[in-house]
């Protein structure tokens, strides 16, 4: 003991290194369980931002026992926890409503956003349903202007056997960082696909009718 204090010996140094390595390894083992969620940084590059969210969600879905039994509600919960915080669904709803948004009063707008949220969650869940143990998300190289405020991140969801599914995310830059506001599954943009349905329902029964219809869908 005394020796170590007086001289900084080679053996003492290597012992300390060994200890440090052990501590580091123990820490790694402790966090290694696949449930560990990587921290999401909304101010990172768009590709990195989307990749973190998507792989967190994919990992969670893969490891969840209820999901393995085919529990769709559980996927919805996971999407709500892991994806929705990074989605600007107010913007999604507003763009889907288009010019009709102007006719809605603030209460109707809030109710519409809340009612459409369920549909959005089920759509994002659809992109994650049927994943298997070897499913993988490959983010495609970023195309377009990296300094733009409105960008698209492209990805492929690969499955064990069968064609991969193209899933693209449209993002906008906000003061708080990136937010996803539109989703494309196999060349079909979500907002675009709801515009006619919204307009049609509003024409038939007004904004309140649309809110009611969306809420009915949420109960199914």
């Amino acid at each position, binding site marked *: 003991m005394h020796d170590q204090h007086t001289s900084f010996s080679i053996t003492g140094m290597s012992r300390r290194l060994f200890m440090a390595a052990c501590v580091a390894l123990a820490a790694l083992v402790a966090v290694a369980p696949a449930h560990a969620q990587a921290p999401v940084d909304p101010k990172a590059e768009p590709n990195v931002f989307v990749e973190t969210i998507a792989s967190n969600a994919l990992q969670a879905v893969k490891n969840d026992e209820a999901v393995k039994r085919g529990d*769709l509600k559980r996927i919805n919960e996971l999407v709500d926890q892991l994806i929705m915080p990074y989605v600007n669904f*107010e913007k999604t709803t*507003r*763009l889907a409503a*288009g*010019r009709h*948004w*102007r006719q809605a009063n*603030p*209460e109707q*707008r*809030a109710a519409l*956003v*809340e009612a459409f949220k369920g*549909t959005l969650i*089920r*759509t994002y869940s*659809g992109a994650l*349903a*049927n994943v298997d143990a070897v499913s993988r998300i490959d983010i495609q190289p970023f*195309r377009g202007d990296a300094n733009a405020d409105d960008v*698209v991140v492209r990805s*492929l969801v690969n499955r064990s*056997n*069968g*064609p*991969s599914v193209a899933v693209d995310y*449209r993002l906008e830059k906000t003061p708080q960082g990136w937010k996803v506001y*539109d989703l494309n599954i*196999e*060349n*079909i*943009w979500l*907002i*675009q*696909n*709801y*515009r*006619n*349905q*919204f307009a*049609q*329902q509003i*024409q*038939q029964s007004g904004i309140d009718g*649309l809110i009611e*219809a*969306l809420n009915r*869908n949420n109960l*199914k």
Partner: protein
Amino acid sequence: MKNQTRHTPRRRYSLGLAAAAVALASGCATVESPSPRDPLESFNRGVFAFNDAIDGALFKPIAYAYRDLTPAPARSCIRNVFGNLEDVWSAFNSLLQARGHDFFNTLGRVMFNSTMGLGGCIDVATMNGAHKINNDLGTTLGVWGIGTGPYLVAPIWGPTTLRDGAATLGGLAANVSPITPIKAIDDVPVRNSIIGLYALDTRESLLDADELVNRTALDRYSFIRDAYLQRRDALVNQRTSDGAALPDYSDDELPDYTDPQPDTQ
């Protein structure tokens, strides 16, 4: 028992016809402002309801039974063998569209899958990063500058457009289609069984999409129509410009964009 099973399809057929008649009659009255790309919406909604009735009574249960009774590896093998045939057709269309890169990629897929993939049974090409490039005659016509024409719902077949429907029918009539090699089989029962299996496989592959539509659509008819048109447009746009153009929502952007947003709770 035997007697019963023989009559079931006929009864269901007439049930479907009755449903279609009702839907046709009601459909004509309800459509107020058809989408510009769907001028025949009233008629289409009638056929859509007819298809749904037949599908729900016949094709969907068979497809689910097929999924439940066949082991997943067998189904994936069957899917991939048909996929390999489709690739031949895709490659041919890439050639018609003067897209050499796609042509050689798809040709490579076919050669790789037919040999290493045991006759197409295993999609080894996709596993090695050579992704499928879907292509067909309707897309080729689109690349050549022909618009889709009105949206149509064909009986049994489902969503199509004047252009895509004509391409499919024309291809079948001229005997150039994904199933050309199957039609070359002389043994009629074998040939028809394979075509039946192809149809079954196709229907089974759509079951998941079907469930997603049921869970998310406000109006299934509009949802499927808009999804079909979006996807078909994207396939053509990807080939005629550098990338599919993004939908532009800005013409509907609010003047009060920066107004304080309502509390969403």
